[in-house]
Structure formats: structure tokens, C-alpha cells
């Protein structure tokens, strides 16, 4: 192996081991920042030693042992320091719990604690995202910076500050209980979905790290689903991401223009991901209970995924799922989507009635999809003059050039009809 090969191998080992390493170390030293430093030290040691001595047979165990030794050294030093400082001579009691045995059991629990600490509400959303990708995804600050189109020092600082905030707030390394668990889990899911959407929004010419975020989010979601397999919403989120990711290859044409969901070539959808998404959805449903917002969105996405052709789409079911979603998380945007589904299921008249109720909604006043949807329904009702006005209005509101062209084309089509 050349030095470059060994470095790539070390990267791969880090990718596989770092989260568990940091989680186990946090349990010993009770400080996630220090734990990450220790893990990084072990990585540096590997970079020094492996190119000469070769990669050990069990590289994960090597990193763990190296970091563990440093952790114990640090604890002893701190304990000594504390004793000197406070002149208290209680032997060994500062070393709790026994670090060596503590490291070896319940790695899954430690990982879950690490997930919750990285997404802790004491941190800003941006900090949660950066820390999650760093501690759980094993990404470098450079990779995170490229993915989010910000300078590397910004991300580095964000992570340093986040770790400091956690230390200063003495955030415990634990899985929250009871009602707090639900709220905290929802913050974790939000972080993962935010990462996914950031990757999904990647555009032509972007750094390859941006679309990579979709894969990172899926990986985190899949890991989380195994850590808390009894939480239906986690499976809902995984299902939603799998199904949305299944369409990535089909959503633009050869010249980079967007293709509407209903016009996509379904043969280009990724059927492995669809299968996984439907399985995750079923797994969540099997747990029983009322579906949460992610499960409902996944169920909607699944209606599209199950239809072999656009005209086979079960719009009635989609309309009723949107209704449930609107009950759970009322929002004008969800209502607008429900109106589209109702229009498809029960005819444009019914859809238009719902859209008209939304026209007074201030939050949609400059939202281009409201006139766009309304124009479409009016067009179907052959009210072409009104439809043209709506398409033109929608075109003036969108900031996307391709979308504007599409809408103006539709406005023009009203003249000939």
C-alpha cells in the first residue's frame, strides 16, 4: 500500500468507527468536546503509525484502545489536578464509572446519547446540523463547509462554539425520558430532514458534497431507525427520504430542466429505494398509533411511488392524507397541496373551491404556487382568460427562471384554447 492508499483506508476506518468512538469516549469523560479531541488524537496517532507498521487487523479496536488510554491519562491528570487544587485526597473516587468496562458495553445506547447531544435544543439549528454531521457522520469541517456553501472557518468556529456551549451548559450525556423524549426526538428528525433537503436542493455546478448530503441524511436516518426501532416517526422520516431520493434521477431532463412529478419517467425512479421506503413505511405503521407528520408525508409519497403510471395515482387517498396532515400541522401550504389532490380526485371545481378559500391567506400572498395551481384548475374548467391571468401572476412571483418560462408558456397556451 502506498501512503495515499493508507490515508484513504484511514479515512474509511474513521467513517465507520468515529461516531462509536466519540460516543464511547463521551461516556468516560462526560464532555463531548474533549471526547472528540481524544478521538482526533487517536486518528493522528493512526496517521503517524499505520503508514510504517501497516494497518492493524482490527483498526477500530486499535483506535478505541489508543483513545481509551488517552482518556484515562486525561482523567487521571484531571483528577490529580483537582486533588491538588482542592486539596481533597479522596482516592480514585473522581474516576466514575470504571472507564474501561464502561467503554465496552452498550455502544448503541452511547450512540443514541450522542445523537441527542448533537441535536440538543441549547444549540442553534445550524450548530446542530454541523455537529451532527461532524460527530455522527464523521465528516470533516471542510466537507461540511463545501456542502453548505460557507467558508470552512465558519463551520470550524460553529463546531467549536457548539461544543463549548454544551460544556458550559453541562448538558448531560443521556437519552431524555418521557414527554421530553418525544420533543427531543422531533428535533433530531428535523436536523436529519434539513440535511436531506439541503442535498436535495443542490443545483447544477454545485460541489459534489452537496448532493452527497442526501446520502448522509439517509444514512443517519437508517442508523437512527435501528437505535430507536419502536419510534414510528423515525421510520416515517426514513420512508419519506427513501422515496424522495428514489426520484432524484428522474426529476430533470437531459438539458437540466425540471420535470414535474406526474411527467417523470417512472422507469428512472430508483426501485431499490422505493422498496426500502415502502418497507420503512410499513414498519412504522405496524407499530400502531396515529401517524405523525413524517409518516403522513411518506404515505403521500408512497401513493405516487406505488402508481405504475401517473393516471393510476390514488388521488382520493392522497387528498385524505393531506387532510390528516393539515389537522396535525395546519398550514396554508398543506391546504394548497390538499386542494391539488382534491382537484385531481373530485374534479377541478372542488379543488378550486379550496384554493379560493386560500386567496385571502396573507402568508401565501407572494407564493407563486397559489396562482399557478389556481391557473391550472381554471384551465381545466376552460375559464381560459382567468387562467392566463393566474399563470402570468405566478410567473411574476417565481424567482426561478425555468419555472417562469414554463408558466409563461402555459399562459400563452390559454390564448389558443
Amino acid at each position, binding site marked *: 500500500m502506498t501512503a495515499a492508499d493508507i490515508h484513504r*483506508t484511514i479515512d474509511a476506518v474513521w467513517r465507520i468507527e468515529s461516531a462509536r468512538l466519540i460516543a464511547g469516549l463521551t461516556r468516560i469523560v462526560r464532555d463531548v468536546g474533549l471526547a472528540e479531541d481524544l478521538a482526533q488524537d487517536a486518528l493522528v496517532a493512526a496517521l503517524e503509525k499505520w503508514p510504517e507498521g501497516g494497518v492493524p487487523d482490527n483498526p477500530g479496536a486499535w483506535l478505541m484502545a489508543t483513545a481509551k488510554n488517552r482518556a484515562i491519562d486525561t482523567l487521571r491528570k484531571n483528577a490529580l489536578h483537582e486533588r491538588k487544587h482542592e486539596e481533597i485526597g479522596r482516592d480514585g473516587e473522581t474516576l466514575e464509572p470504571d472507564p474501561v468496562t464502561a467503554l465496552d458495553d452498550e455502544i448503541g445506547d452511547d450512540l443514541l446519547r450522542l445523537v441527542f447531544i448533537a441535536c440538543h435544543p441549547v444549540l442553534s439549528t445550524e450548530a446542530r446540523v454541523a455537529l451532527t454531521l461532524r460527530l455522527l457522520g464523521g465528516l470533516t469541517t471542510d466537507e461540511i463547509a463545501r456542502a453548505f456553501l460557507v467558508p470552512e472557518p465558519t463551520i470550524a468556529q460553529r463546531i467549536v462554539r457548539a461544543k463549548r456551549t454544551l460544556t458550559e451548559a453541562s448538558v448531560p450525556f443521556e437519552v431524555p425520558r418521557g414527554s421530553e423524549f418525544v420533543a427531543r426526538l422531533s428535533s433530531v428528525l428535523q436536523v436529519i430532514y434539513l440535511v436531506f*433537503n439541503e442535498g436535495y436542493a443542490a443545483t*447544477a455546478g454545485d*460541489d459534489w458534497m452537496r448532493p452527497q448530503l442526501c446520502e448522509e441524511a*439517509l444514512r443517519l436516518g437508517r442508523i437512527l431507525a435501528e437505535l430507536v426501532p419502536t419510534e414510528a416517526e423515525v421510520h416515517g422520516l426514513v420512508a419519506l427520504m427513501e422515496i424522495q431520493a428514489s426520484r432524484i434521477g428522474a426529476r430533470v431532463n*437531459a438539458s437540466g430542466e425540471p420535470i414535474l*412529478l406526474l411527467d417523470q419517467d417512472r422507469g428512472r425512479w430508483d426501485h431499490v*429505494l422505493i422498496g426500502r421506503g415502502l418497507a420503512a413505511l410499513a414498519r412504522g405503521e405496524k407499530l400502531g398509533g396515529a401517524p405523525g407528520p413524517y409518516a403522513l408525508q411518506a404515505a403521500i409519497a408512497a401513493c405516487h411511488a406505488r402508481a405504475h403510471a401517473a393516471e393510476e395515482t390514488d388521488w382520493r387517498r392522497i387528498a385524505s392524507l393531506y387532510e390528516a396532515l393539515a389537522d396535525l400541522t395546519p398550514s396554508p401550504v398543506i391546504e394548497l*397541496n390538499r386542494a391539488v389532490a382534491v382537484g385531481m380526485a373530485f374534479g377541478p371545481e372542488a379543488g378550486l373551491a379550496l384554493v379560493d378559500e386560500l386567496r385571502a391567506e396573507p402568508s401565501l400572498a407572494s407564493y407563486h404556487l397559489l396562482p399557478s395551481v389556481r391557473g391550472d384548475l381554471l384551465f381545466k374548467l376552460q375559464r381560459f382568460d382567468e387562467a392566463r391571468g393566474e399563470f402570468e401572476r405566478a410567473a411574476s412571483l417565481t424567482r426561478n427562471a425555468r419555472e417562469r418560462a414554463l408558466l409563461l408558456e402555459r399562459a400563452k397556451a390559454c390564448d389558443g384554447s
Partner: protein
Amino acid sequence: MRFMVLVKANKDSEAGVLPDEKILTAMGKFNEELVKAGVMLAGEGLQASSKGARVRFSGGKKTVLDGPFAETKELVAGFWLWQVKSKEEAIEWLKRAPFEDTEVEIRQVFEMEDFGANLTPELREQEERTRAQAAARK
């Protein structure tokens, strides 16, 4: 990126002899690790080639050849589909697999989309995202 991991056949797999309990347990544990790490997308073991067939295309002619097939070591006896960040990550995972005397091949999968070149936001899906984000914020 994705890799397909191709496990080759041997005398036992071709004879339809099922792996013993020890191997099954070890393999089960390995699979569990892959799932927990979010790496495994799919994976299956294949039955002996005696239960399979080949269709040979030659000019316009199609000839069906029934199994078994002779070249045991060239036959595929099972596969995984893994989602990883690099070829090295796939290799690291493969090194952890509980095999003894065999050679396992990994091959990178072509991805349908050419990331970067033609990835653009898409109307309806963007709409879905907005909706989803609105829902997530509640």
C-alpha cells in the same frame, strides 16, 4: 456511492448444502452490523445454479441452457448492495465479513443521475419540500 458485493459459489453452495449454524450466526451478526451502520441497501443469497438457467443470445437466436453450470468459482452465490462514501469504505466493511477461503468481489454501481451536471430543483418536488419543511417546523 453504491457497491455491489459479489460472493462466489463453492462446492457446497452448488451442492445445495446450507451453511452450518456457526456460519449463519456469524453472517447474521455481520448483516446486523451493516444495517445498524446504514450501509446495507439489499442483500440475498442465491440457490445452486442447478435451479437456474441461462439464455444465450446469438444473432437472432435464443437458446435456453439449464443449470447446473460447471465453472463453480465464477458463479455468483450471493450479493449485497451497499451504500458507502468510498471504495475504501466498502473494502473496510468487506474485510469485516466472516468469510474464510474465498474471494469476494466489489463493483461500483453506475448511478442513474449524473450529480452536478444536470441536477436542478424541480417544481413539484420543491413544492413538496416546502410543505414538508412547513410541517417539520410545527
